[in-house]
């Protein structure tokens, strides 16, 4: 699936399960002078790495029913740490896949699809990874204005349980803690989200906010 034959051009592997977006990304990168290979899933990507030895990878996290983009990045980090990784995803950060923030390594870029306005922004992120110069600018997963950034993973997990309609007692049972501790944590979550604790139902507001932000 190699698209170009430029001898000295840098090679990018695009891993995206949506064929239209994959095709579009490939064309954009080719237009900027990169050699591009594509893969629709993690296993194909691994084979493509062996076959084409890319300099960097542009990886979607959700790759359909098989292994995820995070799995792929984990394997690459172990076997080919020299290959740069740019995550391009709809997820605000890895917590939404049940992973902690450490799932994205320091030298990897994390770009939210909705935050990309032009192809050049994507190229900048790839260049940063290739030059080992990833700054906060290319780590949307760490941006303070990202949805629910102010919550810890534990708080986010608790909010998720609240959003699932669990009672404080059920959450306490699941978390192996007391109802009082859950109540205290939920109060802190409400405060962190800027919700008025005296309003009619901050719980409902928090749940609505969670779903709204998650859908973004």
């Amino acid at each position: 699936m190699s698209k170009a034959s430029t001898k000295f051009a840098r090679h990018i592997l695009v891993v995206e399960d949506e064929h239209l977006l994959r095709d579009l990304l490939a064309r954009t990168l080719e237009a900027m002078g990169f050699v591009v290979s594509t893969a629709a899933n993690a296993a194909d990507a691994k084979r493509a790495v062996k076959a084409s030895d890319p300099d960097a990878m542009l990886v979607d996290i959700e790759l359909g029913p098989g292994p995820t983009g995070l799995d792929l990045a984990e394997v690459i980090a172990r076997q080919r740490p020299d290959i740069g990784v740019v995550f391009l995803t709809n997820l605000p950060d890895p917590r939404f896949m049940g992973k902690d923030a450490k799932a994205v390594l320091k030298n990897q870029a994390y770009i939210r699809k909705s935050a990309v306005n032009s192809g050049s922004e994507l190229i900048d992120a790839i260049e940063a990874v290739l030059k080992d110069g990833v700054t906060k600018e290319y780590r949307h997963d760490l941006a303070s204005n990202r949805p629910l950034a102010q919550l810890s993973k534990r708080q986010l997990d608790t909010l998720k349980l609240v959003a699932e309609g669990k009672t404080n007692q059920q959450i306490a049972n699941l978390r192996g803690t007391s109802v009082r501790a859950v109540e205290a944590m939920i109060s802190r979550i409400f405060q962190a989200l800027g919700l008025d604790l005296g309003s009619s139902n901050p719980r409902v507001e928090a749940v609505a906010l969670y779903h709204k932000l998650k859908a973004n």
Partner: protein
Amino acid sequence: MRLNRFNPLSLLASPHALSWQNHVVFFGLAILALGFFDIDRLGGNFASWFVVFLVGFITTVSMIELFKRLTKKKTNPTLRVSWLLAGLVIAGIVRGLVVFETGFLLGLIPETELLYRLMSAPLFVLSAYFLSNALVASFLSFREQANNLSSELERLNLSRNSYQSDLQLVNQQQRNRVQELLSAPMWELQKKLETATNPDGVRDALLTMQSINNEVIRPLSHELSASVGEQKPLVSTSSNLPQWRPALPKRVNLSQTQPAWLFFGVLLVLSLNSQISLSSVNQGLQTVTLGALPVALFFLIERWLFRNVELTIPAAVTFSTLFGVVGSAIGGTLVQSLGLSITDLFWWQAISLVVMLKTTTLVYGILLVGWQKTLQRLALVNSQQKLVNSRLRQQLWLGQKALAMELHGSVQATLQALAIRLSRMQETNLQEIQTILAAVRQSLSRIENQEYLAGQPFNSLLLELRDLWEGTAEISWQIEDAAKQELEKDLGLARCTFEVIRESVTNAVKHGSASAISIEIQRSENMLKLKISNNGSVAENQQYSMGSELMEQLCLSVALVGKQGEVVLLAELALNPEFAV
């Protein structure tokens, strides 16, 4: 000591041991002993004896309560049982002493009775409380367990309602509304694209496409996602729940419902105590042996005769009483004919003691059978409910995943890509427009997508996983034929199973540094059983694998077992597709 919920000795270690109800039982037994033995043997008026009885009763209860307080903090069951048994003996000795002193002061008990009182009272207190505790504590224990199961069932039922309503929202309302709301603008878009013969037409189509994305898809997904989180009042369906109250068995087997050791233990303690104290060791032994032998013989005959017979409860009580009366009457006659009996009432005393103990033992046995059956029934309902809930949790996860993938992922991604592609079209290219139209249709059709494996067989997902981790960890698998069929039949289950495998493989490699992973999948009656073994570090595996919310959501149960050089994750996934909404 292993705690058996209904074992009389273990019940002394339970939190319900020697509860106030036992004092009520003891009150009755002590009154009977007063009427049967003391007044008849020593004479005197009832009022004076009642004063002695009350003093003795209050002393006994106070001593037992004191020992209960002393043993309250002892967590070792063996130690607690030993302490309480010792406490009962000491309470009995103090009782004997107090009863003797009070009776002596009131002129009811002669001085020569001191030894008898000091010997008989501890045995009486010990056997009476032991027997009553067996009944009372086992009932309280049963009630507690039944209440726990019942409330768990209620909780499961509420969760099921919650899952079902969430599922209905995710799987039906959302999809229906999405299709309903998208179909009109999409139809318009299609029309525009079909008639686009110049750059202006394409631009017009592009604007429509953008407006669909910005004004329909995004707000809609927000609105619908928020509706999932609305707090829905959950209707308690406790009226439909099975009642925990004990259902007595309609028929019982006499050989199984009369614990011999309990019956003979209490019988021998009480009769030896009274006979030895009233006569001598030798005479007491002879009296009890002669009296108890026919009782034992008839007890054995009764067991043998009814070993394969199920009787109704009234019939069981009648036969048990009948055999007890015949055995004890023969024993009483033998004792009296040899001149060994001390009192004139011995014959009646023997019969009443045996009948009382046999009936008590039988009632205890019948209650145990009833309680066990009630608990088994509740446990069965609970396990079925757990299966249903687990299955619903899987369905909910699949529904949310599918929705997230198709509505927030594929549909938006497709529309974004199409928008950019259209914007790049310098001039009308009918062939490309046709391609775009096909993509739009395909994208929309995916909203109704239930193809959880995206058309791939389960085995190919495992191959993908193996290929991905090749060079870091060797992954092998073995899938039983029955499990294979289930996975082929139920794609949702296959997807959930793969997610569990994927997650545990990642955990094993990433956190446990495993280099070899083997997967076994088997089907049991209501579930798929997964055994995922790896050669990684136990501590690290445990730290990360067990807390995974994904595992909890998809599995009926998850356990991580560390053996020598091997870590095994055991997971169960619920089957029974008929439960799925």
